[in-house]
């Protein structure tokens, strides 16, 4: 059938569909549907909150580390460039996937919305207590068996919790394509084996199963949409390059270990051990890691201020750092290629060499930063704080006593009928780190705060 003027192809029509409203009228809004999605995410209060949330080190610490919001902007920029490059280089495949840069950027802007205050430490803690609220004074029937996961919380925020319209139109009412693009782990949690790939990471709770299935209607198998693949790769690039850059600036990356021959074996062994935990790890993990390290070492050779000097922010150091990261990112952007959408496999293939380097760069951050004793002590306190707040939200929420709740969180209990543990976790996930600290101090009585200070506006 010939496509008539103004007629939208079936896949395109499905991609721009929204759950709660008809297609926007171009006479009323000059933006396309995906531009609207991107703008809705950017202006959401959940996005605003990311400025006060940890990437690895606490948001705002030393004013040098990326907050989740700064990280997110960079993911958005890289994601958009990835999409534009694919469209330029593979116009036919891009068209068949319906690939749109606005969708990728929107998904990138949304990808971390569900991260609770204090990052992964709190995420792990919430997962434990949402599944077993009896650890925090709750009852078995308060529990949600699918626990807590940042990506699933993102989907819940986008489809239910974000406040943009009235109750009859929950969430941001995004298009199907954008929602599908946010699903990095496009399955529900495998409750039969929490240690399996699908038990450890998942992108939607059972409470949002209907929205998840609607968003994934035109996707195949367990494969991410092409746009979700690009969002995921953009996140990996930003995390591996920019976070490493932060930690280089404060001097915790031991470049001497990375570039000197004598330390190679230990470094490779550590990286291999982490990679082998991935059920999809290939047989030649050792050789690929060794080769990736050799390439990174070679790439560092012409930037001696990075590997030989303590960072003090001098012009030459900053110049070389920027040149180095730019030399990394460009090839990583060009490393993504769209697959044939009818082939039935992954929709995007990332060149092995680039993927291996990014994995290794991420390992450097893990090795030198995540193992810092001070970070562990900080996280111990943060986990305790999360439990305390969870216990208070759970108890008071179940009793309908919302006087202790920040006003902007009360609607979560009023509008949703999910088990109490889920709603208590939603409240915590809606706080910045400073808000969590302030609220905790006030509620446990260590600091009264000001009567006229609402804490969480």
């Amino acid at each position, binding site marked *: 059938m010939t496509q008539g003027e103004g007629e939208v192809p079936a896949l395109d029509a499905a991609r721009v569909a929204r759950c709660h409203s008809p297609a926007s009228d171009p006479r009323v809004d000059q933006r396309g549907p995906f531009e609207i999605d991107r703008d809705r995410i950017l202006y959401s209060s959940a996005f605003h909150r990311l400025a006060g949330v940890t990437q690895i080190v606490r948001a705002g610490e030393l004013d040098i580390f990326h907050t989740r919001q700064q990280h997110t902007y960079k993911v958005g920029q890289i994601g958009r460039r990835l999409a534009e490059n694919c469209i330029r280089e593979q116009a036919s495949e891009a068209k068949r996937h319906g690939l749109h840069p606005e969708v990728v950027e929107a998904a990138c802007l949304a990808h971390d919305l569900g991260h609770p205050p204090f990052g992964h430490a709190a995420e792990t803690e919430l997962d434990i207590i949402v599944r077993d609220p009896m650890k925090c004074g709750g009852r078995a029937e308060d529990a949600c068996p699918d626990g807590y996961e940042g990506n699933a919380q993102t989907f819940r925020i986008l489809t239910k919790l974000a406040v943009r319209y009235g109750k009859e139109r929950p969430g941001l009412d995004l298009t199907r394509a954008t929602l599908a693009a946010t699903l990095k782990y496009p399955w529900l949690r495998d409750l039969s084996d929490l240690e399996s790939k699908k038990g450890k990471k998942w992108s939607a709770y059972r409470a949002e199963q209907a929205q998840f299935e609607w968003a994934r209607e035109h996707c195949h198998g367990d494969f991410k949409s092409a746009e979700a693949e690009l969002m995921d790769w953009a996140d990996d690039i930003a995390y591996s390059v920019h976070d490493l850059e932060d930690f280089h600036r404060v001097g915790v990356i031991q470049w001497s270990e990375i570039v000197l021959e004598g330390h190679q074996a230990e470094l490779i062994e550590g990286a291999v051990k982490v990679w082998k935990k991935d059920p999809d790890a290939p047989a030649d993990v050792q050789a690929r890691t060794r080769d990736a390290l050799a390439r990174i070492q070679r790439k560092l050779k*012409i930037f001696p201020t990075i590997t030989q000097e303590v960072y003090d922010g001098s012009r030459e150091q900053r110049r070389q750092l920027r040149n180095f990261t730019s030399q990394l990112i460009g090839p990583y952007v060009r490393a993504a290629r769209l697959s044939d959408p009818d082939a039935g496999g992954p929709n995007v293939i990332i060149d092995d060499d680039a993927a291996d380097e990014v994995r290794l760069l991420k390992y450097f951050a893990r090795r030198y930063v995540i193992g810092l004793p001070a970070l562990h002590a900080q996280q111990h306190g943060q986990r305790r704080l999360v439990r305390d707040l969870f216990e208070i939200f759970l108890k008071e929420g179940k009793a309908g006593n919302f006087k202790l709740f920040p006003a902007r969180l009360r609607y979560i209990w009023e509008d949703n009928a999910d088990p109490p543990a889920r709603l208590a976790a939603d409240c915590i996930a809606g706080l910045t780190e400073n808000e969590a600290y302030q609220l905790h101090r006030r509620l446990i009585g260590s600091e009264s705060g000001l009567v006229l200070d609402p804490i969480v506006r």
Partner: protein
Amino acid sequence: MKQDNPPSDETILELIGNAGGEIDPDALMQQLSAEFDLSSIIEALQRGIERRKITLNNEGMIVVAQELAKVA
């Protein structure tokens, strides 16, 4: 005596060409070190990257930027 000025783009491009289109950073710096200080060599390489004359390929070898673009 070593030269005061950093090596020119042309000098670097010529060495890359002589090496068959790509050269290990160590080898390039080794060759240039006969005539130039290390700091001058590094300066020239940074400038070469910033002017988009040279770049690193996926293997970390130094190549002529336009040649890499042709391959891509």
